[in-house]
Structure formats: structure tokens, C-alpha cells
């Protein structure tokens, strides 16, 4: 008898332990997301409207390139630009990071520890500082141009261009690509690779047929961890893009600063939906690949 009451006592403790978090998650994780939708679909007087969303898709502005001026859809253009820069940065991180993660996972245990620690050190520096460091390098009067000047190679103008923003994104989020891929590779069974070799698989074949499929979960989480902060950043584009062109994060931030909370919510709402669909597709693609 006593045992039974004791067990239900333990059960009670466990339910009680869960209660504060359940309430917290509901109040501060779920409800705020409902507020994003609520603000997106209301006007300043909290009356229902679809105007914020319509504005996102239809607002236009003039872009002059040389002589010609053309009219563009402001926010659609910003969205496409954000997506483009984020995808390019993610691809560069993957191309640079995948071989590096593979190399680390093949090194001795001690070297692995040292290299992983080295990769994590810049991650621990605040990303504002990391981004700012690149601003001082890439400025017209910065270190890169100083170096080029000293070598009599002329000067390049890179700050304020999309390339500068991509450099910043790659630098800031590169470790987030390496770490998940490495952790999957480190757990990989070496015997599988040896078996493939013994059965006559070439080096490239092993990479394509054994290592790559097995490392896919790491690649997916690496891609997510670079793509999501890249697409939603506003500091990198402010500093390295000189605020000359907006990304979707800048659009949200500037509406927040201007106290247009309803339109800011609408942009955030659309970004959230796109990311949700995108991540679901990515996950599905990976599942299909893994099955095949």
C-alpha cells in the first residue's frame, strides 16, 4: 500500500514539475506567435484588415539604374534579394565547411579536439563585433585596400555591395555549418567506409555513396543553422551593405523603429510562413534521399 502511494507521489511531483514550463511555453512561446498573426491582420485601431499583407505584395518604388528608372515591387524585391544572398552564403559555407568537417573527423582525437575548439572561439565572440571587424577590413580606406595599395594592386570597392554582405554572412555563420556535419561524421562507423573500399568502391564512390548519405542529417541541420539567421539578419546588411539595400530583416527592423508595428508583424508573419514551408520541404527531400 505504502509503495503505491509513494509511486503516485512521485508521479505528482513530476506533474507539478512540468506545470510551470507548460504555462510558460503557452504564454511566452505560443501566444506571442498568435500576436504576430493578430497584428498582421489588424490596423492601428485593432480593426481587421488585410491591408498590411496586400501592402507587402503590391507596394512599389522607383529604382534607377543609370539612365533608366523602373518601377519594382519593393518588398518582393527585398524578399528575393534576402533569399538569394542567404542561399549563396549557405552554399559557400557548405562547400567550404563540408570538406573541412570531413578532414577534422578523420584526424587524430587530439587534433579533432583542438580544431573544434579553434572553430568555436570566433563563435563565442559577439556577432556584432565579428561583423564590425569585417567592416574595418573591407572599407575603402580599410586594411584590405591598404594591403592591395602596398602591393601596388590598385583598390577595390567592396563595402556596400552584396558581396560584402555575403562575406559577412559566411564569416558569422560558418562554424554553425561545420559543427553539426562534424558531429554526424565523428559518429560514423569507419567499418562502413572500409567495407565499401573492400568491395571495390573508388574514393569518390565512397564519398558519394557512403559518406554523403550518412552525413545528410548533419548537412540539413547545418543548412538550417546558416540559412535561417542569414535570411533574417539586419545588422550585417546595415554595416557591410552600408544600409544601401534592404534585406527582409532590415524591412522588419525599420518598421519597428518607425513604430509601424502592424506592418512589421505582417512581414514577420510572411517570413515565418515561408521558412516553415521551406524547412518542411528540406526535411522531406532529405527523408526521400535517405530512403532511396
Amino acid at each position: 500500500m505504502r509503495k503505491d502511494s509513494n509511486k503516485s507521489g512521485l508521479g505528482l511531483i513530476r506533474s507539478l514539475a512540468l506545470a510551470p514550463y507548460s504555462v510558460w511555453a503557452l504564454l511566452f512561446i505560443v501566444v506571442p506567435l498568435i500576436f504576430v498573426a493578430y497584428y498582421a491582420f489588424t490596423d492601428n485601431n485593432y480593426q481587421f484588415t488585410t491591408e498590411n499583407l496586400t501592402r507587402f505584395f503590391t507596394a512599389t518604388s522607383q529604382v534607377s539604374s543609370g539612365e533608366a528608372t523602373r518601377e519594382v515591387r519593393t518588398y518582393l524585391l527585398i524578399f528575393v534579394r534576402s533569399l538569394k544572398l542567404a542561399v549563396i552564403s549557405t552554399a559557400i559555407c557548405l562547400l567550404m565547411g563540408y570538406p573541412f568537417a570531413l578532414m577534422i573527423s578523420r584526424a587524430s582525437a587530439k587534433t579533432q579536439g583542438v580544431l573544434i575548439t579553434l572553430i568555436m572561439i570566433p563563435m563565442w565572440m559577439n556577432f556584432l563585433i565579428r561583423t564590425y571587424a569585417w567592416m574595418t577590413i573591407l572599407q575603402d580606406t580599410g586594411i584590405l585596400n591598404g594591403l592591395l595599395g602596398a602591393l601596388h594592386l590598385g583598390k577595390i570597392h567592396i563595402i556596400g555591395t552584396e558581396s560584402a554582405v555575403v562575406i559577412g554572412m559566411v564569416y558569422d555563420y560558418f562554424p554553425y555549418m561545420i559543427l553539426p556535419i562534424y558531429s554526424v561524421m565523428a559518429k560514423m562507423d569507419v567499418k562502413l567506409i572500409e567495407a565499401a573500399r573492400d568491395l571495390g568502391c573508388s574514393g569518390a564512390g565512397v564519398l558519394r555513396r557512403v559518406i554523403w548519405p550518412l552525413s545528410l542529417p548533419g548537412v540539413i541541420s547545418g543548412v538550417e543553422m546558416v540559412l535561417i539567421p542569414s535570411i533574417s539578419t539586419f545588422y550585417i546588411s546595415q554595416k557591410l551593405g552600408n544600409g544601401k539595400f534592404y534585406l527582409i530583416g532590415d524591412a522588419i527592423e525599420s518598421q519597428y523603429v518607425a513604430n509601424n508595428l502592424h506592418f512589421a508583424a505582417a512581414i514577420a508573419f510572411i517570413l515565418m510562413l515561408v521558412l516553415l514551408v521551406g524547412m518542411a520541404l528540406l526535411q522531406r527531400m532529405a527523408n526521400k534521399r535517405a530512403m532511396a
Partner: protein
Amino acid sequence: MKTASKIYTGLVMLFLFAPIAILLVFSFNGAKSLSVFSGFSLHWYEELFRDSETLGAVKNTLILAVSAALISTVMGTAAAVGIHRLRNRYLRLALDTATNIPMINPDIITGISLMLMFVFVGRLFGAATSLNFGTMLIAHVTFCLPYVILQVLPKLQQMDQALPEAAMDLGCTPLRAFLKVEIPEIFPGVLTGLIMAFTLSLDDFVISYFTSGNGFQTLPIRIYNMTKKTVTPKMYALATIIFFVILAMLLLSNLLDANTAQTVKEAKEKKKARK
């Protein structure tokens, strides 16, 4: 390692550390220039330590990070204990989904969503400004919680499930069994969660930016405000100090890890020898 690998490693490390090295070097620059080094000086460090706004921000950051880490660790550990034994499938799915949201969502959305709610609730109560230390603390606890839970849950799964029951069979009360048996078993996960929560809170800029009031400035927000205008190398001095604090912390934790690994190894060897 092959030569090609070594060269590639070298290039990656150059890419990762050159920008930081430049900050370190120019923090000791005598002049204000960021591209010409004109002699060693500690001038910018003196400036930094005279900057009461930055020092205040450091203090604020520490207060916030310690509070957020403690609250999220206690609540997150308790939550993990509850989630671990949760039998209701739907409740479990709902909680897992909620826990994943702050980790998947971009920071800007987490920040905006909390800010909108705070503003709305503040308006209901007719408050002039609804963002303050409290709202920031709520935001920080919210984004730290999932990381704590994810650190503690695996430890609960690794634990021998019969242990707390065995303790109770031997006369422990449920609470005592929980405190004396379960907690020590999962303690390493709790500690990692605490450290993670602390560093996440320390480092956060985006969510803080949207949920902070005017009066409460953390270090990342201070850095943001400093880099809005033309920056003096004072910020480089700050970056250098942060870098060395991080380096010291990492080395220390590696040393501690190696130490515990060593003690565990020795204990195991002793056990073997006894047999």
C-alpha cells in the same frame, strides 16, 4: 594529415582568426586610424574604463544573464523531469513542438512576437512604456529554456529508470528520492544547461534589441549603439577583453573536462585493479 589538408586548415584558420587578430592589434594603436598602425598604446583601454555607460552595460548584462540562466535552469530541469515520464502522447507532442519553436524560429521573429505581446498587454494596462528589465528577463528565459531541456532530457533517458523507485522501496519519500537520487544522476546535464543558458543570454543581441526598454542597456545593445556612429578603437579594446575572457573560459573548461576524464579513468582503473 596530408599536405593539402594542412594547407586547407591553415586557410580556414586564417579566415576565422584574421579579423579577430586585426581587432586585437588595432586596439593597441596609438592613433585613431583603423588601417595604419602608429605605435603601441593603452590609450583606448583607458578610455574604455572611463566609459561609465559601457561599464554599466557590462553590469546589466551579467545581472540579466545570471537571473535568466538560474530561472531557465530550474524551470527547464523540472520540465525535463516531467516531459521524460509524460505518457499522454498529444501533450508530449504539443510540448515538444513548443520547445522547438524558439530554436527554429529566427531570433527576429522571437523578438518581434514577444515585443508585440508586451506592447499589447502594456496598452491594456495603460502603461506608457511596456518594455523594461522584466520583459527582457522573460524573453531571455524563454529562449534559454529549450536548450536547458535538451541538455537534461538525454541524461534522464540514460539514467537507470529503476533507481528512484529502488530508493523509495528502501524508505525514501518521493521528494527525497527525487532530490537525492534523480538530481545527482542528471546533474552534469543541468550544469551544461546552466552554462549554455548563461552564454546564450550574455551573447544575445537581436531578441534583446526588440524587448529592451530605453533604460536597460546590455553589452550587445551598447555595442550596437556604439557601432551606429563612427567607432573609436575603444570598441576594439572591449572586443579584445571579451576575446581573452572567452579564451580563458574555454581553456578552463577544457582543463576541467580533461581533469574529470582523468579522474574517471583512474577510478575505473582502481576498480579493475581491485577485481
